[in-house]
């Protein structure tokens, strides 16, 4: 359930780490396994398995040491894994507000570290912790006593985490990092020990006590609802099905027409199309390659002078991210299951809200989809958001009077409102409001004032630059010449940008692929951004 950035493990700690790593990666994890104790798990994740196997075969004495260690674990004790978050790492850059406000890929929590715990443990009689952490419910604060160190942190429900394990991120609780990082969270480094046998750092511990306290804490999460509710938002298929039919899992959305036929929403049109004389910018996002790391979020932050709003504002649901990564867990309840078992609609949806014990996780970056029939455009009373004839939905900040109607009418909820004057308000001391900070803002992008709406511009400043360069050389922009900031930083090339009017552009090729689909196509808004089905190498029953 962690982000995969585990420190190196040592032989002595091997069984421990193995069990903690399990839930995130092991495909064989099934019902009942959640109750397994840390020992005796045969299949460890690849990265860990090798040293373990080596150690075990090399030295039978190690086995007895490990067994002896395990015997020391008392009933009710937890096993702790100390990990690094994708954004903050070990915390050396903790003073960077962008990283603090970057939601953790899995928990979607910003600005804090916390104790991740399995829902089964949180529900146990000892704790009875609040599960629905985030905006609606306060997290219970617990004390973790490990190696003589006590860490006091809020507890966060992590579906898929093995029972009996907890995780705490490094990089927090700094005292001399600077005004942003000081005093946030608790420092987990003191809990890291040095293995006597081999001198390596030990990023895990057994026999950890977790004590409930009476305190509560409000974690700042950007996403407080965790499942897809049976909607075709992230489309998935299996490799086998994909090989048979490349359109697998991407059944077209069809609308019934008055003449008795059916057609896709993109072809059913009440409006006149905007002319696309020259360019028609578009973007593809491959859900197959997206890791959910969040690099694009930071890329967008830095390119577009997106404000950091701080913990309290995130708690109120006011993060300014133009680009967000949605994370969905699967739920045990599905449409199919409800139908088979005759579950009523109310119960079905209530069950769908609950992630399964060992869910699959999908990520989906969502920014403005630059709808060709944009619902945000029609409702603005002053024409502050309009359509360019190159397919962009453009926001004219200077014209915006801040009715927020466009934000309400955006089906993707990607519009962000400037609730305060972030760039000139001492309550938002995240470097944008001081002279030094202002000097490193991107000069190509306006800093938004209070009371206006903003959103992804498809990095229009970069498009403009690319077009001008091409024009100077008397040619059209070539494929890959114009890169949006999010595309540029994506480590897996999940994001591709280009001109859909130009057949040589990769994005145009993508748009013709069978895996291509538009998010919420059925609303009939013809987005310019499209996604590519996620293909998994699993059996059909596991999907």
């Amino acid at each position: 359930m962690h982000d995969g950035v585990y420190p190196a493990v040592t032989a002595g700690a091997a069984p421990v780490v193995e069990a903690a790593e399990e839930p995130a990666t092991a495909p064989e994890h099934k019902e009942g396994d959640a109750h397994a104790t840390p020992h005796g798990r045969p299949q460890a994740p690849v990265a860990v398995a090798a040293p373990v196997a080596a150690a075990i075969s090399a030295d039978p004495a190690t086995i007895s040491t490990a067994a002896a260690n395990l015997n020391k674990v008392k009933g009710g004790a937890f096993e702790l894994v100390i990990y690094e978050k994708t954004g903050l790492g070990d915390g050396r850059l903790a003073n960077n507000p962008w990283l603090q406000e970057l939601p953790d890929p899995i928990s979607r929590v910003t600005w804090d570290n916390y104790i991740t715990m399995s829902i089964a443990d949180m529900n146990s009689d000892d704790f009875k912790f609040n599960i629905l952490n985030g905006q609606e419910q306060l997290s219970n604060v617990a004390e973790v006593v490990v190696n003589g160190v006590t860490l006091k942190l809020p507890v966060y429900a992590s579906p898929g985490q093995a029972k009996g394990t907890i995780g705490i991120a490094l990089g927090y609780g700094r005292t001399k990092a600077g005004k942003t990082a000081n005093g946030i969270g608790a420092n987990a480094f003191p809990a890291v020990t040095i293995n006597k046998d081999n001198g390596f750092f030990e990023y895990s511990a057994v026999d950890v006590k977790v004590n409930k306290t009476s305190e509560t804490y409000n974690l700042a999460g950007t996403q407080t609802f965790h499942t897809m509710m049976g909607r075709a938002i992230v489309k998935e298929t299996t490799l086998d099905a994909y090989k048979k039919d490349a359109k697998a899992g991407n059944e077209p959305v069809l609308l019934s027409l008055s003449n008795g036929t059916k057609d896709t929403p993109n072809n059913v049109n009440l409006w006149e199309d905007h002319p696309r004389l020259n360019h028609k910018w578009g973007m593809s996002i491959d859900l197959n390659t997206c890791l959910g790391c969040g690099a694009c979020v930071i890329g967008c932050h830095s390119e577009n002078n997106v404000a950091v709003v701080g913990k309290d504002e995130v708690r109120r649901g006011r993060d300014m991210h133009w680009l967000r990564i949605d994370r969905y867990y699967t739920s045990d309840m599905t449409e199919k299951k409800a139908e088979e078992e005759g579950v009523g609609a109310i119960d079905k949806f209530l069950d769908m809200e609950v992630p399964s014990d060992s869910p699959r996780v999908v990520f989906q970056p969502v920014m403005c989809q630059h709808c060709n029939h944009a619902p945000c455009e029609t409702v603005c009373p002053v024409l502050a958001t309009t359509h360019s004839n190159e397919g962009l939905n453009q926001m004219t900040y200077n014209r915006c009077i801040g009715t927020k109607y466009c934000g309400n009418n955006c089906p993707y909820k990607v519009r962000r409102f400037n609730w305060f004057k972030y760039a000139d308000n001492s309550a938002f001391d995240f470097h944008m409001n001081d002279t030094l900070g202002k000097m490193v803002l991107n000069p190509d992008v306006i800093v938004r004032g209070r009371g206006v709406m903003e959103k992804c511009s498809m990095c229009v400043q970069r498009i403009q630059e690319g077009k001008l360069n091409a024009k100077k050389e008397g040619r059209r922009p070539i494929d890959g010449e114009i890169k949006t900031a999010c595309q540029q930083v994506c480590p897996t090339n999940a994001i591709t940008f280009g001109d859909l009017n130009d057949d040589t552009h990769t994005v145009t090729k993508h748009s013709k692929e069978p895996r291509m689909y538009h998010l919420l196509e059925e609303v009939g808004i013809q987005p310019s951004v499209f996604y590519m089905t996620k293909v998994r190498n699993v059996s059909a029953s596991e999907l």
Partner: protein
Amino acid sequence: MAHAPSNNLREPLILGEKSYHDITVDICRPIETRANKLWYVVFGLSFITMLWGIGLIAYTVGTGLGVWGLNKSVEWAWDITNFVWWIGIGHAGTLISAILLLFRQRWRMSINRAAEAMTIFAVICAAIYPVFHMGRVWVGYWVLPLPNQFGSLWANFNSPLLWDVFAISTYFSVSLVFWYIGLIPDFATVRDRAITPAAKKAYTLLSFGWTGNAKAWARFEEVSLVLAGLSTPLVLSVHTIVSMDFATSVIPGWHTTIFPPYFVAGAIFSGFAMVLTLMLIVRKVLGLEAYITVAHVEAMNKIIILTGSIVGVAYLTELFMSWYSGVEYEQYAFLNRATGPYWWAYWSMMTCNVVTPQLFWFPKIRKSLVATFIISIFVNIGMWFERFVIIVTSLHRDYLPSSWMMFHPSFVDIGIFVGSIGLFFVMFLLFARTFPVIALNELKTILKATGKYKRTSPQPEYKIEDLILESRKGKSGAAIHGEEHH
């Protein structure tokens, strides 16, 4: 009209065998006498709440909309809820004075003045919200299609918000003119009875030099009729257009064609409820029991049953349509309304708006002033919840579950709402003490037709002369003789 035979089949609309002079005296009494302690207490409280509301608006404008409870998913909540609620309340006045005038419903005469005043004040309260929900109020005038030097910038005629601007400003100005024209002869009566020079001067100005000659009366009647004709479509158009803010959007729960008739019925429903709430207080406090009778209350209660039932049918139709549409988003939106985290708001709305008004089928309840008062409060609350349910529950869970969020009002949201109620009562209380709260010129036209009346004037409870002497204590001077108009 005045000589129609009195009809014993109907309950009289004016009780207590009044004479023309009695009507004048009764209705001018609050203007001519001193307010009692209760008035000052209520006024003081309202005034303080109003100031609190103004303070919070200033705080909002000075700091940013962030002081409200809105978030990235729910970008309208209490603001637009209150706006639609107030606008709805502002529907009864014009309906009573325009549509009921055209339908020759005489019972409206006892309540139209106050109901119209309520309309004007409610629209003023409503206007607070669309104005101050703007992130940049100071450039709010950009919604007006004014010639400008910003280049070719013009308003977006596709936007329902712009239609709102036109609809509401038209409604407000027509209602204001209609109300004011009706007031002119009554102001003249007050002017003629006025005893202090200041009051005389003020009412002289307000009455526009009304002389009461036949020609003036003839024109007065004509203008009233024309304005009634003009405002009738407005009663229907305003809420239709307000409903289009939602109906033309793509958000499940908003995007429905049933909204215009449903909103209009709801507006009339809530308007009458508010008229009842206020009139029941006014008749008691100002001693107008003879003019606002059980018959009036009953007539209004019947309208409440009708519109309440329309609203109830609309709620059920909405549920049916969402299921029948087969659209998963629609289906979920309505299921979520009724059973999701805001179930309490939905069921408050259902109980207050659908169940309670049905009690008016029982004549006993319909004729009971206490029951009517309580139910009218229920309807006011229910109609607030209706708007809250439509706005917040639709936004808080729309298409992508990743952006689903709850909304929590901040103290500023609540404070501005309470402040607007304060503002409303400040205006209404001032109105009750300075304006004739019942259209006495109209009332006099039905005196003979609808009840027993006295031909001769009995002794008034107080003599104008005494009051004059009292106010001029120590001063000598000619008494000003009040002359009244019939």
